[in-house]
């Protein structure tokens, strides 16, 4: 059982409820007496609120309450930023849940209406009269840093939220001065809108008599929500229960605790009845955090035979109007420390300026900082290859960190755990038939067709992470995970975890871990998560950490159970513990496997406790808090093949091949699903997606009519392969796979398009690579020639 279950692609345990429409998401919950909240949001990006008249709204049918910033003053604190990046001059502007006197982005909350039905709440929003005094807005991060730019926060000079640097290795100036070749590029990592298919929602139910609150929330980390909620609304943590029921995707956008969540709780607390708030999709576009938004000036120095000697970058990262919960760590720690990529780079320097702009706050979005790093490095490596006229695969090979299985230091200060980057690339080129693809490209070019091949070799940091490091980098929480494994008398198992999966399938893979460790059927294991009253503390599901950290906690808890079970088995079999053997859920005395005790036998005995060994507690249950000794570093190599229609600029993605290494795979089908989804999100960034503001700060891509997320058509079947390099420090050797695809694919597709356009003299196009952008760069290159 165990051997066949761990590593097999069994069907997911979570699916029966999801395919029958019986799963319960936040918006599906109805409580007696429940009221509905709707938020009035600023239609202007930067404006002083001179007056608000809510009287007509308050009188409207069904309206129970209308609150403005004046009502929440002193009752709820500002929405906190919880990543206090050290040594960066971090300046945090107060993010009032309801804007008090100034609105700073389109979507900033100005008032809230609570009514008997959502229709009535929205009717009343139309009746609130707000007078605004318009102020100049600023939307581009680099311009926000410029002299004379409109200023968002009086107390913060130059709109600068922070200036963070990473310097490592040799003298960067010298590396560039003495280099034979230098390649440079300016990249705009455009703003992306996460688009989890389930919009955000909160249902708060406060009982005035007991002072207790239950909050159902679309979150990736209910324990963090409880912690921050308690600080902001003043309900003690022991009276606060946060439940993440079924959650319809997050991709980083459900990490933060948002003003609307605090306001919904405030309303329930004030009114003493349950209050539900559900955002509309257009509201989601304005108010749920965005991702990326970097302007990157980057350069790479190398020898004439393509050996990299230094990498230097300056990044202006748009943070939006306020700093969201984890925002400062994304373009810095999760980005700058990864600039060595899969390469041996002797000197690295990066400056990152975090800037306030009159836009929706920016947070983690699938990959969070790492796609932006991978893109920089992979772009530079391709530019180097083009400059030296060496095949891009070959340039990569000349610079790869050689294979290692227990630690490799890069100059940014990280120690990668294990990797064989050349192995991944070799497998990729083989599976893709790279040489033949190159020959086909030559043929196609002769016929005037523009076919391009793009490579992206990446390593990512995930499994966040050692809590001591968390503290050192200013993360206002721990980064360990927990698990409780509880055997019932009948041998069935409940697993309670602190992490909070929302689509990744850990109810299945964690049952497989238990099956692998303890020999029970995964069908006999129920994994419970997402309810702070029923689960041990944990820091949540993001950063590809649930299996990497929570899975480790679970494996260790299972091993504690195994150890205890062995003692009980020895007692029952009247043998010495040292003589006991364990295999596939059975304990037996060495040499006599026929007389054995199953884990189920032990569970029954431990629970009835009729005959326990001296000094051994009743029950078969274990709890583990696992704080990882290091991060894990999955990696891989991807290839995209595109064809560009030079006449119109349209790009067709013809083929996509991926090799990923996330260590041993608990469930390869689930791994493959994560890879598919991640890759398509990254393709979306390369080809279609962009959150666009006009210069007044109006979101021009404010609905799904304008913002193009990938659809089923227009995508090839993705060819997924893997290699397996265990992490030396993880109890199961596993790494993470949730973000890998996204981290790799944007660069692969982009590099392919540039490769296709090479005969036309195009070396740079702003993303997304819309037909017009590609067409214009072709036109411009032709004019230059």
């Amino acid at each position: 059982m165990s051997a066949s279950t761990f590593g097999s692609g069994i069907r997911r345990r979570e699916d029966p409820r999801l395919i029958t429409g019986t799963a319960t998401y936040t918006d599906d919950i109805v409580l007696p007496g429940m009221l509905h909240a709707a938020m009035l949001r600023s239609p202007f990006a930067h404006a002083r609120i001179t007056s608000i008249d809510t009287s007509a709204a308050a009188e409207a049918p069904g309206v129970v309450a209308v609150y403005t910033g004046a009502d929440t003053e002193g009752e709820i604190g500002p929405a906190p930023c919880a990543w206090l990046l050290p040594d960066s001059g971090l300046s945090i502007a107060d993010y009032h849940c309801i804007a008090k006197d100034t609105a700073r982005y389109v979507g900033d909350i100005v008032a809230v209406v609570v009514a008997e039905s959502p229709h009535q709440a929205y009717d009343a929003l139309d009746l609130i009269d707000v007078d605004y005094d318009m102020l100049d807005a600023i939307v581009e991060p680099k311009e926000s840093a410029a002299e004379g730019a409109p200023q968002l926060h009086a107390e913060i000079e130059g709109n600068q939220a922070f200036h963070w640097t990473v310097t490592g290795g040799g003298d960067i100036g010298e590396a560039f001065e003495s280099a034979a070749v230098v390649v440079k590029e300016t990249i705009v990592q455009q703003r992306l809108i996460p688009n989890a298919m389930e919009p955000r929602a909160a249902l708060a139910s406060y009982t005035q008599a007991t002072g207790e609150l239950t909050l159902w929330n679309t979150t990736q980390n209910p324990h963090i929500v409880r912690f921050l909620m308690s600080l902001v609304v003043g309900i003690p943590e022991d009276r606060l229960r946060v439940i993440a029921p079924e959650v319809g995707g997050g991709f980083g956008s459900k990490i933060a605790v948002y003003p609307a969540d605090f306001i919904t709780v405030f309303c329930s607390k004030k009114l003493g009845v349950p209050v539900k708030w559900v955002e509309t999709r257009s509201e989601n576009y304005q108010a749920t955090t965005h991702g990326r938004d970097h302007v990157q000036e980057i350069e790479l120095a190398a020898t004439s035979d393509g050996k990299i000697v230094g990498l230097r970058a300056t990044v202006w990262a748009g943070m939006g109007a306020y700093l969201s919960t984890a925002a400062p760590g994304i373009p810095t720690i999760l980005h700058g420390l990864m600039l060595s990529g899969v390469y041996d780079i002797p000197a690295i320097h990066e400056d990152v300026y975090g800037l306030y702009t009159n836009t929706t706050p920016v947070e983690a979005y699938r990959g969070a900082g790492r796609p932006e790093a991978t893109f920089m490095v992979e772009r530079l490596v391709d530019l180097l290859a083009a400059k030296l006229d060496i095949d891009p695969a070959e340039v990569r090979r000349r610079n790869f960190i050689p294979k290692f299985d227990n630690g490799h230091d890069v100059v940014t200060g990280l120690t990668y755990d294990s990797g064989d980057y050349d192995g991944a690339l070799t497998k990729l080129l083989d599976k893709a038939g790279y040489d033949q693809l190159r020959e086909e490209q030559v043929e196609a070019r002769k016929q005037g067709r523009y076919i391009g091949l793009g490579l992206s070799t990446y390593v990512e940091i995930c499994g966040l992470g050692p809590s001591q490091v968390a503290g050192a980098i200013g993360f206002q929480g721990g980064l360990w995970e927990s698990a409780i494994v509880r055997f019932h008398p009948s041998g069935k198992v409940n697993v309670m975890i602190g992490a909070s999966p929302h689509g990744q399938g850990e109810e299945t893979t964690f049952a497989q871990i238990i099956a692998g460790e303890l020999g029970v059927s995964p069908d006999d294991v129920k994994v419970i998560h997402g309810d702070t009253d029923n689960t041990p503390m944990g820091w949540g599901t993001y950063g590809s950490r649930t299996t990497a950290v929570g899975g480790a906690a679970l494996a260790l808890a299972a091993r504690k159970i195994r150890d205890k079970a062995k003692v009980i088995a020895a007692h029952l079999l009247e043998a010495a513990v040292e003589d006991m053997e364990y295999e596939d859920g059975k304990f037996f005395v060495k040499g006599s496997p026929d007389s054995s005790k199953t884990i189920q036998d032990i569970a029954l005995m431990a629970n009835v406790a009729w005959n326990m060994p001296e000094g051994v507690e009743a029950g078969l249950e274990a709890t583990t808090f696992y704080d990882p000794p290091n991060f894990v570093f999955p990696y891989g190599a991807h290839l995209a093949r595109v064809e560009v229609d030079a006449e119109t600029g349209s790009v067709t993605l013809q083929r996509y091949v991926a090799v990923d290494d996330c260590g041993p795979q608990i469930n390869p089908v689930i791994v493959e699903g994560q890879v598919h989804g991640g890759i398509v999100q990254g393709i979306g960034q390369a080809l279609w997606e962009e959150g666009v503001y006009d210069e007044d700060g109006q979101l021009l891509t404010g609905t799904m009519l304008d913002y193009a997320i990938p659809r089923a058509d227009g995508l090839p079947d993705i060819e997924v392969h893997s290699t397996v390099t265990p992490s030396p420090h993880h109890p199961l050797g596993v790494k993470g796979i949730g973000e890998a695809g996204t981290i790799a694919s944007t660069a692969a597709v982009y590099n392919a398009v540039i490769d296709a356009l090479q005969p036309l003299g195009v070396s740079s196009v702003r993303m997304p690579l819309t037909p017009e952008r590609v067409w214009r760069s072709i036109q411009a290159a032709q004019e230059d020639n």
Partner: protein
Amino acid sequence: MFAPQFDYYRAGSVAEAAALLAEHPEAKLLAGGHSLIPLLKLRLAAPSALVDIGRIDSLRSIREESGTIEIGALTTHSELASSELLRSRATALAEAAGMIGDPAVRNRGTIGGNVAHADPASDLPAVLACLGAEFRVTGGNGDRSVGASDFFEGLMSTAIGEGDILTSIGIPTVDSACGSAYAKFAHPASRYAVIGAAAALVVDEDGSCTCASVTLGGLVPAPVRATAVEEALVGTRLDAAAIASASGLTGDALDADDVLGDVYASAEYRRSVAQVWVQRALSSAAARCG
């Protein structure tokens, strides 16, 4: 997502609908709802009442009668796309209808609502203009039949006046030596037309083009005929070279000031590449001739 309040009346017949409209002048007609309901949900429209004509079955049909294919206003995009009659005799219309939105949209959206709404990014106006359609209108301003050039007055504006109901659309039938086609550059998010090109061609026994109709939509407020392209095609044998050179004249049909642009595709770009879609439509139409 939560529409403002309005009243609702269901009409059992065209006459009843006309009477309801007369009684409630601020009311709007509701057909398939696939342009109107999205506006209501975003509170971008706030009619006092809706008159639902969706159940007037007499308006849902595709018939050929005396030299005309008569299409009831309530015929859905799916019905257009799957109609054998249209596929063989007005191919471009079936083709365009099949490219609208997605299957669920096509199941409920109607041809009448599509042209009455007259969104510049819609597909059907350009095709219907290309095929020489006549729009039959009844109601407030009396019964009449309006040609495409008069029907589409400009951006989201048509000859349908207050109290009017569009009942059907007639397309003159053509002989089998005629082929028509529609080519579309779809917006990646909305799926509406960034550029739509419709072409209809007639050839004589020798394969020489006797008549060409080419219309552009998507990038202009109301459908525009590419007369220069049409003229250049007549008399040619519709080979690739002839089509390419005629398509090259597409820009001439487009007054630069009229071309629409947006954050996805600028007017300049659309105007420059429109010829590619004209060429595609012409190539398919030519292949269908004979």
